[in-house]
């Protein structure tokens, strides 16, 4: 359903992504793991249209969306929870969630979605009126997820959703990822917490300095010695 073909991305002189290709089938959870600076975030930013690739193409449901702007991709059903949460600091929790539903035409169903988000993240319900910028790190992470869900995406791009979260919440976040997926959303998940990521994912890609070095079923990869040593702390 989603595919990246022969992607190359540069930052000025830096060649950050060197000709990678990857695909995500409908209903799958695919994870992208790799060390710091491997280019995971850049891949996601290119996928959602925040960064233009030098060459290569991005496909969604059979259509070439390389030239489509970021805001239109939202309309096509893509939602991106960016690295570092990027919540609207000077807006309340409620307003942040409302913005998540910015392009939704079915305004009537919004109330139900608010309830869903609040039941997944009860903290957010308590902090409805608080400015997002003053939330704790974990609270902001939940808000960023909740905000993305408000768009009812078909494809959700998650960039390190477990970063900075308490252990209990890490488990919860991965549970939520599973739930969202079970409810029909396809997920591309970037993670440092490779252990957990490989547990929830169907398939995985491993990235190193701008290239994909291995890929395969998540189960299988988590047993590989190299992977264990490099990413799983084993």
């Amino acid at each position, binding site marked *: 359903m989603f595919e990246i073909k022969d992607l190359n991305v540069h930052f000025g002189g830096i060649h950050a992504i060197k000709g990678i290709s990857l695909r995500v089938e409908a209903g799958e959870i695919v994870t992208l793991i790799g060390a710091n600076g491997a280019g995971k975030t850049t891949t996601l930013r290119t996928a*959602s*249209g*925040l960064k233009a690739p030098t060459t290569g193409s991005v496909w969604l449901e059979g259509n070439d969306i390389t030239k489509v*702007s*970021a*805001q*239109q991709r*939202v*309309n096509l059903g893509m*939602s*991106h929870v*960016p690295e570092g949460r*990027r*919540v*609207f*600091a*000077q*807006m309340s929790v409620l*307003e942040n969630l*409302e*913005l*998540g539903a*910015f*392009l939704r035409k079915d305004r009537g169903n919004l109330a139900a979605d608010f309830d869903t988000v609040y039941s997944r993240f009860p903290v957010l319900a308590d902090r409805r009126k608080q400015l997002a*910028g*003053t939330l704790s790190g974990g609270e902001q992470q939940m808000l960023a997820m909740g*905000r*993305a869900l408000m*768009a009812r995406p078909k494809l959700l791009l998650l960039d390190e959703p477990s970063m900075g979260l308490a252990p209990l919440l890490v488990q919860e976040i991965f549970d939520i990822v599973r739930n969202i997926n079970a409810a029909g959303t396809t997920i591309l998940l970037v993670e440092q917490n490779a252990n957990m990521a490989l547990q929830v994912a169907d398939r995985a890609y491993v990235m190193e300095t701008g290239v994909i070095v291995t890929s395969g079923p998540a189960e299988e990869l988590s047993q590989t010695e190299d992977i264990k040593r490099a990413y799983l702390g084993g």
Partner: protein
Amino acid sequence: MEQLAQQLINGLSLGSIYALIALGYTMVYGIIQLINFAHGEIYMVGAYVGYACMTFLGLGFFESLLIAMVACSVLGVVIERVAYKPLRNSTRIAALITAIGVSLLIQYTMMALVGADVRTYPALPDYLSASFNIGGVIISAQSILIIGTSVLLMVALQFIVHRTRLGKAMRAVSMDADAARLMGVNVDTTISFTFMLGSALAGAAGVLVGVYYNSINPLMGVLPGLKAFVAAVFGGIGIIPGALIGGFFIGTAETLVSGYLSSLFKDAVVFAILILVLIFRPAGLLGKNVREKV
């Protein structure tokens, strides 16, 4: 007592002119953190468009006002696209200098086109030139018009920015443009709209002031532009009611200082008050001095 009342009326009328310009200023600032120095010049262009409409086309006040607002919004959008958009990702001071360049450009071009000399607005219909004498205190219809307009526009702007979908998009863009994109907000359109709105306000202010003082010139935007900037900062820059309060404050302070202290040192005293107030309220009157969360 009567004199004080008159001075307060004077101060409010003067202040509402600052407020009128400051509103557009502060709104644009609130969204893209740009001190749009050209705002004062757009206001000046608005005054000239209104003048041309009334003098050469013989149009009435409201038609001229409308045309000036439209012309200024177009000008504002063009400036934004050509001069400010390329600088979106650079430092704020760089954008400020570009804005100064644009401001000079408009000023000098205007000076070349219409000359440096003042122009005078034609005589107004009676309902606009009337004045009322209430117990010795004189209020002109124009003062009422200007004070009323500025309050009304403040309310309207506040509503647009905080209650409408577009306003929400504007604020989202102001905080994090990339994140706003990920919500489906069209950042370019939103910013253009902001400029359109701000410039239309400036255009309206230009015509109103043209009518009020009935004399305009290419440099007329400089001083009020500066005062409006001061007013906006004083009220808490980016905060819409702050612009109104700041404008009223500066206008009233100026009037009272020259009425009761010394017209020689009017601006100096007003600036001194301003600095003092800022020392105690470092983010302006309405601004919250929130320390960044670390």
